């Protein structure tokens, strides 16, 4: 690896150039946030005492940075804020990769989001719909987008009584409230029923019933614990115990989604992607990839290597974990878009697994992997739903809510997980720098830097690289997670809660669950009309066999399409992206129509029974994101489905 790095460096003429590139881009992004940082700090100071409703002046991009004594001195106080802001405002993907993924301490990340985001210079509304419509987002971008959308307004202003408490504190209060009345007790019990016995928190959350898989959960949990303890020998022991041979694709490792960035992305591929100049997310924080799908599949290393493992997990959760042979097949059919574009998924070879294991085992910087077993995930969903129940007392708990919350929490999990993955990668890269430094100077690899960037003053100092490494070291030491399983889970809870509250308040989901289900009924009636105008033949057929379209679409609408049988998670996420950005139920109608129109040729000669069973087990190919979204985009149904107007209409209670 180091040899290869050396080689690539000598091709680039000097390692300092690389270093310089990093530093230049860091400076560039710091220069952006330096000005706004002060404002952020001021704002947070006032936030605690006064209300934070008024958005405040958008911070100007600061002046060019003074060459301070230390490049990283800005991190002295508010590391999190600075890095995050740098991340959010980063002008180029390079700096995103290098400054933020390296430095963002996840444990305190989300709590700092709110003031930061209100200080953002870009109004959220500027995010063009088209972007979301046309491109899949990385998990991190998605999480960012959702956070931006949900933290910008309602949540930061406290609860309904006009309290201006720290939203996080408010959340904790709600979450820890004990049930007092009979009704409250009952809604707790209902949540328990659905969560405890349900299939909660699987990343590839599927509607299918599962057999008892506590056995494999157990293995998974122990594996994760072992990795947490950073002891490779323990992992190997568990492996041996469960006869998970090194040659066969190791189910436990593969199915642990949180390990995937390490386990599944071999460094060669990463470097290859970077060398080819393909950044995973060229649009930075809200980015996506505009290249055509067949290129995209190969140029997004992080996402690509994350996906198969998630897909596999979902296929596992569908219950055939005893047939590893089916993995590859399922994966190809599964969450990837169109089979022709998809490079066949190769299970990591023994070499890769052992490499990653030893990497984790020997890694002595305090990097924890975001892990939680199924119980941990259930706990997140449960706590969030309790808090929601107390916040929206008219709703309490209604079946179907857990699906929505579950999906939001999955978004949070995978977003933060990818961040952690990037973080880990960077630490690994940094280690390579250290190793390089430790070697005696080589004539072909001059260590003296020659800056060609904005800051030639520091040129020639042999300490530039060393300084960089030193600072990174310091930071990675400080960026430890005192208790990864609890604190990160708490962060995820909070993120989930915040996003869901936004959905409930601004996107009218509250009315979808409040007693009477008026909005739901309204949506179903609307859909019935749409079906009549757009698919008259199918509508007639439904009438003929005595089927009300409501019987089919009700569950889809109520769970925002999470409950659609066999739907891949990626598809749901895409639909949600559009819903969240557009703030209109239009996309749900479109997708429902799309499913119906795709089903039409198959369904037309079926009787009632067959139609029902068809819609209870929709063919997966029909629900692939590309197919479905393409089809739904072509549904021209007007724009009268705005969340805000629907909310007003039904918010008389």
């Amino acid at each position, binding site marked *: 690896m180091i040899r290869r790095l050396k080689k690539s460096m000598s091709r680039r003429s000097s390692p300092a150039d690389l270093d310089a590139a990093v530093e230049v881009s860091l400076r560039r992004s710091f220069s952006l946030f330096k000005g706004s940082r002060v404002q952020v700090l001021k704002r947070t100071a006032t936030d605690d005492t006064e209300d934070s409703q008024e958005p405040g002046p958008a911070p100007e991009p600061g002046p060019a940075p003074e060459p301070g004594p230390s490049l990283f001195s800005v991190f002295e106080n508010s590391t999190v804020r600075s890095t995050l802001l740098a991340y959010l405002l980063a002008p180029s993907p390079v700096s995103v990769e290098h400054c933020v993924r390296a430095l963002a301490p996840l444990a305190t990340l989300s709590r700092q989001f709110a003031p930061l985001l209100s200080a953002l210079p870009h109004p959220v509304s500027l995010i063009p719909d088209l972007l979301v419509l046309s491109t899949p987002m990385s998990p991190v971008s998605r999480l960012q987008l959702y956070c931006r959308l949900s933290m910008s307004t309602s949540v930061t202003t406290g609860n309904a009584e006009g309290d201006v408490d720290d939203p996080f504190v408010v959340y904790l209060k709600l979450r820890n409230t004990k049930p007092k009345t009979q009704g409250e007790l*009952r809604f707790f019990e*209902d949540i328990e*029923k*659905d969560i405890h*016995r*349900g*299939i909660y928190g699987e990343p590839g959350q599927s*509607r299918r*019933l*599962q*057999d*008892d898989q*506590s056995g494999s959960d*157990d293995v998974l949990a122990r594996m994760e614990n072992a990795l947490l303890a950073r002891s490779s020998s323990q992992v190997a022991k568990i492996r041996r115990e469960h006869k998970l041979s090194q040659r066969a694709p190791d189910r436990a490792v593969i199915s642990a989604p949180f390990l995937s960035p390490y386990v599944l992305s071999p460094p060669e591929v990463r470097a290859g992607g970077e060398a080819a100049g393909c950044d995973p997310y060229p649009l930075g924080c809200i980015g996506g990839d505009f290249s055509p799908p067949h290129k995209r599949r190969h140029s997004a290393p992080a996402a690509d290597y994350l996906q198969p493992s998630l897909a596999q997990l979902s296929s596992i959760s569908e219950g055939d974990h005893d047939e590893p042979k089916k993995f590859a097949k399922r994966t190809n059919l599964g969450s990837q878009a169109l089979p022709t574009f998809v490079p066949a998924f190769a299970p990591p070879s023994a070499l890769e697994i052992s490499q990653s294991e030893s990497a984790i085992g020997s890694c002595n910087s305090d990097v924890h992997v975001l892990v939680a077993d199924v*119980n941990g995930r259930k706990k997140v969903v449960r706590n969030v739903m309790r808090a929601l129940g107390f916040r929206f007392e008219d709703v309490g708990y*209604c*079946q*179907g809510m*857990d*699906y929505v919350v579950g999906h939001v929490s999955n978004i949070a999990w995978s977003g933060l997980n990818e961040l952690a993955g990037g973080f880990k990668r960077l630490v690994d890269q940094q280690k390579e720098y250290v190793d390089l430094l430790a070697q005696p100077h080589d004539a072909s690899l001059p260590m003296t830097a020659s800056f060609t960037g904005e800051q030639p003053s520091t040129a020639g100092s042999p300490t530039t690289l060393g300084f960089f490494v030193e600072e990174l070291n310091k930071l990675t030491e400080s960026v430890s997670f005192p208790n990864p399983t609890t604190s990160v889970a708490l962060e995820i809870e909070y993120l989930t809660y915040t996003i869901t509250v936004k959905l409930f308040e601004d996107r009218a989901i509250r009315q979808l669950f409040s*007693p*009477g*289900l*008026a909005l*739901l*009924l309204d949506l179903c009636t609307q859909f*019935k009309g749409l079906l009549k105008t757009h698919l008259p033949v199918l509508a007639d057929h439904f*009438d*003929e*066999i*005595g089927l*009300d379209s*409501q*019987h*089919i679409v*009700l*569950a889809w609408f*109520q*769970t925002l399409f999470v*409950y659609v049988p066999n739907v891949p998670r990626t598809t749901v996420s895409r639909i949600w992206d559009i819903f969240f950005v557009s703030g209109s139920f239009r996309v749900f109608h479109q997708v429902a129509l799309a499913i119906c129109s795709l089903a039409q040729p198959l369904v037309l000669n079926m*009787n*009632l*029974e067959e139609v*029902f*069973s068809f819609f*209870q087990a929709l063919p997966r190919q029909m629900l692939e994101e590309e197919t479905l979204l393409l089809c739904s985009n072509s549904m021209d149904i007007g724009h009268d489905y705005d969340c805000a107007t629907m909310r007003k209409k039904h918010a008389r209670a």
Partner: protein
Amino acid sequence: MAEAKNEAKMGEESPESSDSEAENIKQFKVILLGNGATGKTSLAQRFANDQFAQSYKQTIGLDFFMKRITLPGDVEVALQIWDIGGQSIGGKMINNYIYGAHACIMCYDITNVDSFMDLEDWYRLVKKSFKDEKLPMCVLLGNKTDLNHMKVVKDTVAHRFASENSMHEHAVSAKTGDKVQTTFYQVAATLSGVLMPKAEMDSHETVVTAQITGYEQHDSEVEGGQVPEYTHKRQSCVLS
């Protein structure tokens, strides 16, 4: 309104829907009502497919099952089981589902008082949506008799509720399959006006195998599911 008409039409037609003309099979719409987690889906699955899923899945909206059965005298009937999500459908929406139903099975969980108490509300909903028309056949069904040791709904109370509202009464277990077939056969027979002799009825009963359940003695969430040491046997007891 048009919707209601459609439904009405459907209600009239469904006993002889178009595809059954050739076979002359009567179809009956049977709806399952009751709180969440009382086991409605399990019942329907046990009856239609003779399966029982160990893990619980909530029904959102509607699940639909269909089964053809033969009654004494070679009367063939088809039962459409409409399994309606416990919590996610309520109020106005229910009309749409129960209109045209021939039978209405009200389920409760014998280990959960609330699920029984709430049946009154469910029954009121049914009466409301049928307003002036004749009520469908109503059945009071207590599920989970396999958990008889945890039973909290008293028989006398259930009897009273059933007789007050002139309902048929059954107690079943979807998990073991106990009495499930009998109940549905009984419903089908009553609906089609076929007399079911007792012996005939019992012949549909599946033989229930007794299960020995090894309950987990230690909570998996406590101390990582480790069995505390003091429970291990050190040595065998020696009698001197």
